[in-house]
């Protein structure tokens, strides 16, 4: 993937990049004002006995309103698990996962389902769209399911940003991979959720399509103040975010504000050296 294109609308707005404060190796959470999503002592253990795997080992992290955060770390470090736990897709072993002050760990399946439907947007690496529905129907799906009328203005803005034009009535098979992921992002955004989680949304895309998807997310954060948490292992992708949180072995091992691809890469190399 090339470095973010510096075009007027799609490029990450790094104009406010000053001398980025690099609060490196802060294990404690930086007190973000107005945390929309937060994990407190979050732990997740898979299996028992010999097959026991500690995927998350006491994670404390918070994501502020309107912030676009990238989560990075080596494979198996617990990135997806963290996302799943925060999105109410997976159960937690101990600790708390909070969204808008509500504790996910005390909710039953129906409550979690409703929370996902009404307050969380989700973008997976692949297979995000229901094949029998058109692109537009896929975008409004969570609201349709809830029997809720979409916010017209927001929907119009999001749909416009997808840039699909007259292909909105097409089925997913008739769209390219990049278009499909943009539709998925639009679906995640259209219901006006508190937070959008994306797990390697560009992992299956070529760099050009990837850039379009990332630009789309960046604009959402800038223009409608959408809180976004995105897992990625690609420094260039991470550079679109306002902030990068580094995970290793189920723990938060560092943070970087106003990242650029180079700085992220350099930081990751440091972790690698230390790890080996």
């Amino acid at each position, binding site marked *: 993937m090339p470095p973010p294109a510096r075009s007027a609308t799609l490029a990450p707005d790094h104009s406010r990049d000053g001398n980025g404060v690099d609060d490196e190796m802060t294990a404690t959470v930086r007190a973000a004002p107005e945390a929309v999503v937060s994990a407190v002592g979050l732990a997740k253990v898979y299996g028992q006995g010999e097959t026991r795997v500690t995927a998350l080992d006491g994670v404390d992290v918070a994501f502020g309103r309107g912030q676009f955060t990238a989560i990075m770390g080596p494979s198996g470090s617990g990135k997806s698990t963290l996302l799943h736990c925060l999105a109410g*897709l997976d159960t937690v072993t101990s600790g708390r996962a909070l969204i808008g002050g509500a504790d996910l760990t005390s909710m039953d399946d129906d409550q979690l*389902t409703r929370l996902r439907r009404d307050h969380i947007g*989700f973008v997976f690496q692949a*297979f995000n769209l*229901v094949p*029998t529905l058109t692109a537009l*129907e896929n975008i409004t799906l969570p609201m*349709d*399911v809830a029997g809720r009328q979409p916010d017209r203005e927001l929907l119009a803005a999001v749909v416009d940003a997808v840039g699909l034009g007259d292909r909105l009535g097409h089925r997913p098979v008739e769209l390219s991979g990049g278009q499909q992921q943009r539709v998925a992002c639009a*679906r995640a955004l259209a219901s006006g959720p508190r937070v959008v989680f994306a797990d390697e949304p560009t992992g299956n895309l070529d760099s050009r399509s990837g850039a379009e998807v990332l630009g789309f997310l960046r604009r959402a954060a800038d223009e409608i103040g959408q809180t976004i948490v995105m897992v990625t292992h690609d420094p260039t992708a991470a550079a679109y975010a306002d902030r990068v949180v580094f995970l290793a072995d189920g723990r938060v091992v560092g943070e970087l504000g106003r990242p650029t691809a180079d700085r992220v890469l350099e930081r990751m190399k440091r972790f690698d050296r230390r790890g080996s």
Partner: protein
Amino acid sequence: MRRLALRSLAAHKGRLAMTLAAVCLGTAFVAGTMLFSASAERAGLDTRRRTDVALRVTDAGDGRLRRSAVDELARLPGVADADPVVSGPGSLLGPDGTAVDDAGGVTSWADSQRFALTTGRAPAGDAEVALSGPAARASGARVGDTVRLLRGGSRHQATVVGVYAYRALGDEAPPAMAFQEATAQRLLGIPGQVTAVDLVAVPGAGPADLAGRVQAAVPGATVIDGAVPGATLIDGPAANAEARDRRVAEARTLRTALLGFAAIALVVGGFVIANTFSMLVGQRTRELALLRAVGLSRRQLRRMVLGEAAVVGLLGGLAGVAVGHGLAVPAVRLLGDQAGPATVAVSWPALVAPLAVAAGVTVLSAWAAARRAARTPPVAALRGQIGATPGDTRRRTIAGLALAVPGIAVYGYAALTDQIDEQVGTVGLGGAALLILAVVVLAPGLCRLLLRPLAAPLARLGATGRLAAGNAARNPRRTAATASALMISLSVVTGLAIFGHSVKRHTVAGVRRDVAAPLVVQPAGRGDAAIPQAEVEQLARVPGVRAVAALRYASLPLRAGPLATQAPATVTDPAALGTALRLEMVAGTAGDLAGGVFVSADLARRYGVSVGDRLTIGWPRGGERELTLAGVYQGSSLVTGLLLPQSVALPQLEETGAFTALVALAPGADEAAVRAGLERAVADRPGLVVRSRAEYLDNELRGADLILGVLYGLLALAVVIGILGVVNTLALSVVERTREIGLLRAVGLTRGQLRTVVRAESALIALVGGVLGVAGGYLLGAMFQRAALRTGLLEAAVPVGQLALALAGLALAGVLAAAWPARRAARTDVLTAIAAE
């Protein structure tokens, strides 16, 4: 290869459950039918009949012989023994005083092969009786009990002293009660007379020898094979052989009919099988491509899939044979209760043939899937796209049209021709079958067409409804195959419903048109004796009765000019025409009957006769009579063929009893009072009932309902298999869509909403099958009633309410069929679904 096939079966055994069930049910039907009919056949062959009688001598006149004839016959050369038989009607009464069903007949006891005592002793005193096994069972009487019986309007009592097993000659019905000879004669009112003499031949003499000698001694005696009415001499061995052959033939006819229904179930099952294998092959594209990539040939791949099908067929078949056997056992026991001892005849063909059918049907149904599997390109292993090849819809369309065009032509011809009879009807039904087949072939396209309007109301459900409609439409071929299975079974059910409804409407119209009388006297049930003429006259004397139309039917030789034929005939009282029995005349007037004979318009056309012609009618007991054709009547539900005045014909008939007596009231008479009078007149005849016109109609319709009920029962299995097919398709689809279901759950579809989606999809598929089935059923039913009732195609009576109810029921069955797949879908774990490759 074999290992591969078996491993793959083991891996998918859960997904094959419904297929196994479908194969099992179809095979059970076949196996049960074969076992039952073989048992019935064996029972017919094994029924113990009298072997000692060479010749039975009866009288062709009044059915009685002098007692002294016994000794005369015994003295003839070649006769070793002459047994007198005294037999006649009589009803055994149960503890509640009503006649015991199927326990009729009085006979004389003799120490011959006829009787074998199972308990007690032979009747010796005047008030002693021995009962047949079935009669004892039906009445609950035991040795030592006192039983009552009804004979000729009076009641008698006797003590049961024994129970016997009866050995019949030919088709003779086993009598229920045996008395001493003199007692039997007294009860039957024929003192000093017998009804038959059984001759036993000396060694070396046969029936023919004896017949020759009897004919020499008794001038005019004739020999007729078997127990044909009017025979004088009955050849014992021949009668036995004929009775045996008849029962065997009946068993085979039954087998053919039941196998027809089994075939419907198997065809429906075939769709389920085809669908399963097609879906399994689709889901295994990658695995199949990998096998191709590592070097398996197309043929090997095809053989692997067919091998899997064969194993499934054999397993389902084995289970089916076991279930069929389980069903045949109680059925054979029932047969044994009604028609003498019967045991389940287990034979190799009855076990192996259903297995072969099961394996054959399964392999044949999996053929298309096997071919598709063999066509998997090896690169699909790398690309990994699910190989839903679009399929050649053009070939399908051409094949469908190739079936539809001749179907329409043939059906149209049969629908429009004015010469409608059985042959044309059969041709028309063949056309309907072609059209249904065409619909099956064109089903994917038709499904798409039907889904749109059917799914429209679902859109109101919002996203869930739209998802369900999308799922049903996404794979039209799969939906079509599933719906086709339902469609086939439902066409037959609908056809039957339309036919039954038309027949009933025809009956209602016929009774309204032809029965003018407000009251009808009839034998209560099928087994009850007809109304003798003396009884009819008694009815006519009841105060307030104006006329009684007692209807008797016969088949009489008819000559008219060059024509010589056997014609159906009806005999009644001309005085009752118009008042009790309405007849629509085409030529002549109803009053002309007294002086001649009427003919139905149908026969008049066929025989080319018209009013004024001279007809010669032969009588069964000899002699003939020339009568003038005085009128031609329009088809009637009660009168058929020749209509003869009873003053002319009655003395000449053999069976003079009437099965229907229509009673017209005198002007001003009170119906209730007359009814009470009639009931008093038949009080000592428990076999007779008085019915109002409405009750008479109800009774006529009940018979049709009974037959329809049995046929619906036989077809129910096919419908059940069709619904299993829906369960099957949904369950497999849910497995296939794991990822999508996970996504929907992640996005916020609740478990309940997910269940609704699956249920709505299921109801939609069921409805498509239902709508197509009702359409196909109309083609069948309308043609069937046209052929049977000789009416127009559009005169078919469509039971709209019943069919609407059936469709609603089918949609509900669809919802229920979705219960298990829906639960599976709702239990899908979101994370594993998303992680699934």
